[in-house]
């Protein structure tokens, strides 16, 4: 890509914690585990819409979504044991929620003050005539200026490259899952969710992929009872997938 011509954009979407608090408050719930489990569905639906608008943010949302799914699964299968690490992750999410809620109130209070328009004014910098004598710096050569700018350019490029790579990673993992799911369904008529995802990250990507494919009406899913394994089937047995 050429160096010139890119923009540093400043998207302002709600973060995952903010979204979660919003969902909990919309249902007038407190921040308990039960509430979290109740808004999991809403959160995943939001995640789904976000994927279309700002894939760059997905990575942060997926982390929170994975913890919500953990809570949900525990609520549904009370006899299942959470590992120490999983328990820690859930506690951590709860802590963030409580901190976040405090700051939300602080932000509202700050905004009230900000809007009161009782600004204190300082004087803008003020050029005292100093007899026009110039103080030249040591070591400032054309090469030094050139080198300094080179550093700055690399930093700016790194910012935009990082943005692009986060986006790509989130999009790729979901797309890959979709593709492998479709491939899988071509060879076997029914697949179990459990067999398709080994790690938690895979499960989330798979979950999103399923949502996508459902939306595009390419698959059907079946669950005989709540919290039983999900069975995934192609929509028509010989469908052109």
């Amino acid at each position: 890509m050429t160096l010139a011509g890119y923009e540093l954009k400043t998207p302002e979407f709600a973060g995952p914690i903010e979204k979660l608090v919003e969902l909990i408050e919309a249902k007038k719930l407190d921040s308990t585990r039960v509430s979290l489990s109740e808004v999991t569905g809403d959160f995943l639906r939001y995640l789904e819409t976000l994927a279309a608008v700002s894939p760059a943010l997905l990575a942060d949302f997926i982390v929170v979504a994975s913890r919500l799914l953990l809570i949900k699964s525990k609520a549904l299968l009370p006899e299942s044991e959470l590992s120490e690490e999983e328990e820690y992750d859930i506690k951590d999410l709860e802590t963030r929620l409580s901190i976040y809620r405090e700051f939300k109130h602080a932000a509202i209070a700050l905004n009230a003050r900000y809007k009161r328009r009782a600004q204190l004014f300082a004087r803008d910098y003020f050029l005292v005539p100093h007899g026009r004598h110039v103080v030249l710096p040591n070591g400032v050569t054309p090469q030094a200026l050139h080198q300094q700018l080179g550093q700055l350019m690399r930093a700016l490029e790194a910012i935009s490259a990082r943005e692009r790579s986060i986006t790509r990673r989130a999009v790729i993992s979901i797309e890959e899952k979709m593709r492998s799911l479709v491939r899988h369904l071509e060879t076997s008529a029914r697949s179990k969710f459990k067999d398709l995802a080994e790690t938690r990250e895979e499960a989330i990507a798979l979950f999103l992929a399923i949502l996508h494919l459902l939306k595009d009406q390419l698959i059907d899913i079946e669950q005989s009872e709540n919290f039983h394994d999900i069975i995934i089937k192609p929509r028509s047995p010989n469908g052109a997938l």
Partner: protein
Amino acid sequence: MEQKLKTIHALLFTYGEPLSLEKLARFAEIPKQEVGECIERLNTALMDTPFTVLSHENSFQLATRPEYASALEAALKSEVSEELTPASLETLAIIAYLGPVLRAKVDYIRGVNSSFILRNLLLRGLISRVPDPQRANTYVYSVSFDFLRHLGVRELSELPEFERYRKFLDGVRIAVSE
């Protein structure tokens, strides 16, 4: 007003920008440990004037009192402040009550990468950053004098419920410090 205070007043006036405690002591030729007390006495002496001294992170700046805001706003059309978005406000609140704070902590509390918002706030001059003394290549963020002035407070402790929030944060510090 005694001479020493007048000199400090004149220095803050001419300098315009926030002046650090060290520089103030050097230029006014007073011991560093006297600066805090002098600023306090200057603030008392300025009671009947339109001015007050802001203090933040061991620096000081002369500013007008809030009751002159409307006359001054008219004179300096440019300084009308823009609205703050919810995301900016939330980030500002975290930095104001928790600062100086690492980006990692801001990210942790918001659960999202905050680099764009931080950049935006830096551009608007509402926050400032300095290299973290403990870690190379890392910055810590604080609110700026401009932020204090916009909110009409002379120091952070005048922010709403400052003590309560600080205390709360002290309670969860372990969880936050990654």
